[in-house]
């Protein structure tokens, strides 16, 4: 596609099929403690 470059990303719809193991870090258990976000957490299902 000449005018569109698509970055490689995890497909969120696909992740619904086998996601939700719950092993990833709890959002606030990190550096922030005051401004929650989830996007910068790492998936840990492979390490389980």
């Amino acid at each position: 596609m000449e005018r569109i470059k698509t970055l490689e990303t995890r497909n969120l719809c696909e992740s619904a099929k086998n996601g939700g193991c719950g092993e990833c870090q709890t959002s606030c258990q990190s550096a922030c403690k005051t401004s929650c976000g989830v996007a910068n957490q790492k998936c840990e299902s492979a390490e389980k």
Partner: protein
Amino acid sequence: MVHQYQLGGYHIVLDTCSGAIHVVDEVAYDVIALYPDHTPDEIAAALMEKYAARPDVTEADLRGCIADVEALKAEGKLFTEDTFEDMAGTFKERSGDVVKALCLHVAHTCNLNCSYCFASQGKYHGDRALMSFEVGKQALDFLIAHSGSRTNLEVDFFGGEPLMNWDVVKQLVAYARTQEQPHHKKFRFTLTTNGMLIDDDVIDFSNREMSNVVLSLDGRKEIHDRLRVDYAGNGSWERIVPKFQKLVAARGGKNYYMRGTFTHANPDFLKDIQCMLDLGFTELSMEPVVCKADDPAALTEADRKIVMEQYEELAGLMLAREKEGKPFTFYHYMLDLTGGPCIYKRISGCGSGTEYMAVTPWGDLYPCHQFVGEERYKLGDVWNGVTAAALREEFRSCNAYARPACADCWAKLYCSGGCAANAYHATGSIRGVYEPGCELFRKRIECAIMMKAAEAAEAEN
């Protein structure tokens, strides 16, 4: 939902529900903006007129671009429908009453007297207290007993200042380690400290046992020492910086964050980031102050405008340093596009009051560290578990779709509905929204994604 924005010379299109990110030129940017409400003929006509002076923009080319957009839509990478709302509560329902992370308030006291402290100098509006080993041990037993099938358990030693109860911290870590094998668990400890009591023992022990160390430093000496003072009013910068440098140097690559707070005194917080870099620190986190709007430290609307510009400049600085081979990390710009969280994580909320709880020195449970001291938010205690079942349900129902104000927000799958405590303090309800925080959050995500676009362009060249 599609979100389009321009930043750093890039035209970026987010298809938020698939997670797809497209970096496009201005013509495709316009095609995508027009696509939902216009026919291909209308789009072609409108853009032929707009780009009449551009010889590279032909009707055939525009038709090709429209076909590309249609192909991406068919592939589920553009204009993906939001079908997640019904799933939003399922993860927490499926998890039952599992708890996997505790914030242990081992010391409700502090050796600094920072006026902006959300924990009111560590006391959380209550009495000064230290957690005993027995209470801490019971908390760890409670965590193990309620962790279900989770392997990774997280414990943050928090305060006040946890180093004021250091021996108990060490005993609790030692106890937890003895419980890992019999229960098939893996503890990850974090220490959050103001640095005043760091010595060789703290450095050795923390670098051996703590998965993460969060070191409170606000940046420039004059900024740090305005608020981070001892009870005699003396600044702490000179005393803590050498200790932090020694700890980090000995850390051997393990996780740490220099964690600063910016306030009305320093919306130009990039200078504080630069100061931390000059001191040799590379893993950085700077947070907007959380306080009442009438607090002198609170960020004003004018401050927030400066902060938004600072976020853009920060992204530029990070890209420049990366090119120079001197990269650094900013916590809120960490995005792993291929290995990031699954959709369940993104829609289920932060976990406060369900998988994550805070424990006071006397063993009371609260939904998170920011609710400690709010008596009506007491969930129970580490001996009897959660006794305020209705309160837990209130938190269980918090997710990315629980807040009406989030319905049309493109960023909700990045924040999962935001911080319940900030919402409560701003609006009186955990289902409210702390809009000033949202505004800054959206900017941070836009910057972080723009950096990914820049890195991809750099890799291509």
